[in-house]
């Protein structure tokens, strides 16, 4: 009996250590994850391919400097209190805002308004300059872009979304925004992309940027491989 208690206590201590470490790692994740941004219901519907879908809007921002703040001067609606673009910002690392975790409803038409303020350059794979998976026109600063997409050597960031493994049918969305030709700061005049897509089945989707804005081989080191800067989740509910 005494030995059984001893064994039990050992197991409990072990489990407690494990839970403590686990909480540490979980907390580490929230160092890089902002509160979820939900797509806004417009209350309207629109016909897409013969189906009537609810329309949602989602605002997206890409900043050259993750240490800046997200407020009216950087594209947020007037009256928004300044909050850090990224909880754990790093000078010289770009980031997306207002969050890196989004929530959108399944099987809805999502209209995205994207303000891109970062600099850029050439893509690794010029195919990503072409929008894929969008519905209707894709506009840049109010003007429709050609079907072949934007100039692959003048790309700022891309918004590339994939469904969770096993989600069927195949869901893939990719839109590239051109670089900011001026001096890129968090408050400079953005390149505004507007596009719409139809969300897929429920699941935990992933988005990331396919423009190599990190360092190292392929430009995918550092910020590109750090979770929560150029990548994140989309909850499709």
């Amino acid at each position, binding site marked *: 009996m005494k030995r059984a208690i001893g064994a039990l206590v050992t197991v409990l201590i072990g489990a407690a250590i494990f839970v403590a470490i686990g909480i540490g790692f979980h907390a580490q994740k929230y160092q890089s994850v902002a509160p979820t941004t939900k797509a806004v219901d417009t209350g309207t519907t629109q016909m897409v391919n013969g189906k009537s879908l609810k329309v949602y809007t989602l605002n997206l921002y890409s900043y050259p400097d993750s240490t800046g703040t997200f407020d009216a001067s950087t594209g947020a609606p007037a009256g928004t209190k300044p909050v850090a673009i990224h909880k754990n910002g790093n000078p010289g690392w770009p980031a997306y805002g207002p969050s890196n975790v989004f929530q959108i409803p399944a099987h809805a038409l999502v209209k995205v308004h994207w303000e891109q303020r970062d600099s850029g350059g050439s893509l690794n*794979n010029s195919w990503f300059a072409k929008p*894929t998976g969008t519905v209707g026109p894709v506009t840049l600063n109010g003007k429709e872009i050609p079907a072949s997409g934007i100039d692959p050597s003048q790309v700022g960031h891309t918004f590339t979304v994939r469904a*969770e493994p096993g989600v*069927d049918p*195949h869901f893939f969305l990719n839109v590239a925004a051109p670089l900011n030709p001026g001096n890129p700061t968090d408050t400079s005049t953005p390149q505004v992309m507007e596009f719409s897509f139809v969300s897929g089945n429920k699941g935990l989707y992933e988005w*990331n940027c396919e423009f190599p804005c990190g360092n190292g081989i*392929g430009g*995918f080191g550092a910020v590109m491989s750090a979770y929560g800067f150029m990548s994140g989740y989309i909850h499709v509910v």
Partner: protein
Amino acid sequence: MSSENIEIDEFHEGKREEVAKQVEPFFKGGPIWKRPFFGVFIIWSFMTLIGVLIGLFVPVHVLNGSSSSQQDSVKLTIVVFTVIAAPVSAVVYGIAAYSLIKWNKRGSGKSDTPPEDGVALRGHGPATVIWLSISVVLVVILLFWGMMVLSSEQTPQGDAIRMQVVGQQWVWTFQYGSTKITSTQLVLPVDRQVVFEVSSKDVTHGFWPVQLGVQVDANPGFSTTIAASPNKLGKFDVRCSQLCGLEHAYMQTTGRVVTEKQFEHWLAQKGASPKAIKLFTTDAK
């Protein structure tokens, strides 16, 4: 003092026969159910039966569906290997389990004094030779099986279509040769060998069209090739099998095996000119 100690080699030479007599005969002696052989045989049969049943039914049911002749042969290989391995493994289980049942006295685990010494059996030539020969034969069978399947799978055929697979962190894109069509979904015609020329834009990825049963790494800077022969219409998965960084888990997509007509239709829908499609699908023949 040293005269009391028998050198081990001396012992081997001198006492081998004597010891052999002490060992309870494996095949002979007494009624058949009392011979060790019989006990081992019972356990062996039981374990073999379980192994063979597992081999015949578990992998084929659990394994992903097959969409190509390569995956068919993977399935067959697993079944054949399990069925061959079952009786061999069962020999070890049979001997070990029989020893435990027959020669473990009740309560020996709680005793502080050891049981009496067993028979000083320091080896058994014929048993070793048989054991080795069986291993050698099995290895030869396995090797020839592997070589046969490998050569039949990867023999290029004249009418194979060649396409390019590009991996990059963390997306697969598939380029249909001269048609200049690029897609994130892999669509293939049925009953045509496809040669994938696989490369990467950044780090090493593993191109793994799961139900096609083939796999090759995508390396930056040059391309590697692998051939598959889709033989069944339907969907399949494409996964990345080589850890490639942050979103490795999401570097997955789906594919479809369609009829030749549907394939041409799909290419046309994607914007390929009829001439390019013809060049791509027919002229390969």
